[in-house]
């Protein structure tokens, strides 16, 4: 499976890059795009389909991008994220397999399959299969209340980053996880493919819920300071550079038993060349690949993601700068449309998050 690609790169800088919205078929790539169990459901609800990471997914529906984004922060939105395939890992050595991957992109099957074979070859009891489930994300301040009406479990006892199996609106065998990619409270529901449309329909019956697509998904995650793999982090960034050291468990750091440990652990203790930071500016929006400069005019880094923030009405972005420029409040310049604009390093998330954390 291809890794996620920048939305701006996909949608392009010219209007001609919106082939799906014209209703004209894409070139022959249309034939090889994968479809989630909700493909027809999206079309029926006015979804504008685009190619994304090898899948045909809705970029938006009938509401504008900004309306959809704001609705998520004020009510709740339903996203089809079934393109993020779910894999069942089984066998006595499944924990060993997972631990041998740690910060790798687990969704990529090929590296996993090689690792599976490697471990199987030395006698490990482990196997892997893709599960035929859809994944629906319900995100927003009213998501929990909407979901509660369809589940028997008390969702107040399901805090951020925990999950449970339960029947949801009559569809059994669903795994509900209190997590998401928007910064809001919400869940991701893994639902057997055959029940996906029924579940989505049931959720949509609540007037609080609206469908949202990839466009809103990208601007929401950016406001929340969340990385997009392929843009903000890739196989050339370490967790320390990416300001993601919190992902490394204490025991694992001591044992140094994960890929890249010999590079990463010294970075934890010592200095790192560059760090991912948040940036804010007025004027023209900062986008991926915009150069970042010091106030003296020397190029010091690059923007990796950026967009105008619908909530803040300012431009927000993420990029990499040398350590000495990474303190919040540091003034910098970003080159946009051949002009240098004042920008400032900002703490992330740009918009406060609302994760349901039990105190």
């Amino acid at each position, binding site marked *: 499976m291809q890794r996620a690609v920048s*939305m*701006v790169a996909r949608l392009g*800088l010219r*209007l001609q890059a919106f082939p799906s*919205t014209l209703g004209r078929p894409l070139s022959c790539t249309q034939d090889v795009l994968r479809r989630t169990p909700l493909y027809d459901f999206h079309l029926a609800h006015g979804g504008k389909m685009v190619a994304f990471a090898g899948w045909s997914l809705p970029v*938006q529906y009938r509401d504008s*991008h900004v309306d959809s984004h704001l609705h998520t922060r004020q009510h709740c939105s339903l996203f089809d994220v079934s393109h993020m395939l779910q894999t069942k890992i089984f066998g006595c050595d499944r924990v060993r397999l997972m631990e041998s991957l740690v910060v790798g992109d687990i969704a990529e099957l090929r590296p996993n399959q090689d690792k599976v074979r490697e471990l199987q070859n030395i006698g490990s009891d482990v196997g892997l299969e893709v599960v035929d489930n859809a994944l629906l994300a319900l995100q927003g301040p009213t998501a929990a209340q909407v979901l509660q009406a369809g589940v028997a479990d008390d969702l107040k006892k399901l805090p951020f980053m925990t999950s449970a199996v339960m029947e949801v609106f009559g569809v059994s065998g669903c795994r509900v996880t209190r997590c998401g990619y928007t910064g809001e409270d919400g869940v991701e529901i893994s639902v057997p493919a055959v029940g996906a449309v029924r579940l989505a329909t049931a959720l949509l019956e609540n007037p609080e819920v609206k469908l949202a697509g990839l*466009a809103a998904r990208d601007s929401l995650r950016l406001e929340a300071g969340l990385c997009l793999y392929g843009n903000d982090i890739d196989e050339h960034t370490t967790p320390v550079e990416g300001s993601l050291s919190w992902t490394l468990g204490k025991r694992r750091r001591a044992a140094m038993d994960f890929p890249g440990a010999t590079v990463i652990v010294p970075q934890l203790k010592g200095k790192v060349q560059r760090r991912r930071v948040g940036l804010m500016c007025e004027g023209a929006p900062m986008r991926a690949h915009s150069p970042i400069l010091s106030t003296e005019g020397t190029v010091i880094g690059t923007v990796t993601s950026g967009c*105008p923030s619908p909530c803040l009405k300012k431009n927000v972005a993420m990029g990499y700068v040398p350590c000495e420029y990474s303190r919040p409040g540091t003034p910098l310049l970003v080159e946009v*449309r051949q002009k240098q604009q004042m920008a400032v390093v900002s703490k992330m998330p740009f918009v406060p998050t609302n994760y349901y954390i039990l105190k």
Partner: protein
Amino acid sequence: MALRAAWRARAAACSLRAAWAPAVPCPPLPLGLRAGAARTLRTGPALLSVRKFTDKHEWITTENGIGTVGISNFAQEALGDVVYCSLPEVGTKLNKQDEFGALESVKAASELYSPLSGEVTEINEALAENPGLVNKSCYEDGKLLLEIQRIIAAVNVCRI
């Protein structure tokens, strides 16, 4: 439909009445006038300046050598909510097809190209505070700028 009604109103002032006399053959529509644009023609002197569209989705109407430029309804819809508008300064000299600015939505950015060679005489200041006007009213309040033509391009006008 709107086209016909507008012509009828104009006829009184400008002797286009003859166009509707059954004996006179109706002249062909000027090049570049698309069916969608018929909805947006207004009554008054501007009627004679038909709206032309470029292949990059800008539109232009010209009157007495001054062109008014904007983007088409198709373009504003594809772009999404415009949040930022970059326009040139008054006095900027442009050649036909020169890039003169950009419109940005949350997701995408689109450059703007001059449909004619000329000098910018006026920009729509309202767009600085309210870039969404481009979406709400791309042919009226959301127009981008005015340019005075340096070279008078051939303007197709209905002649009787």
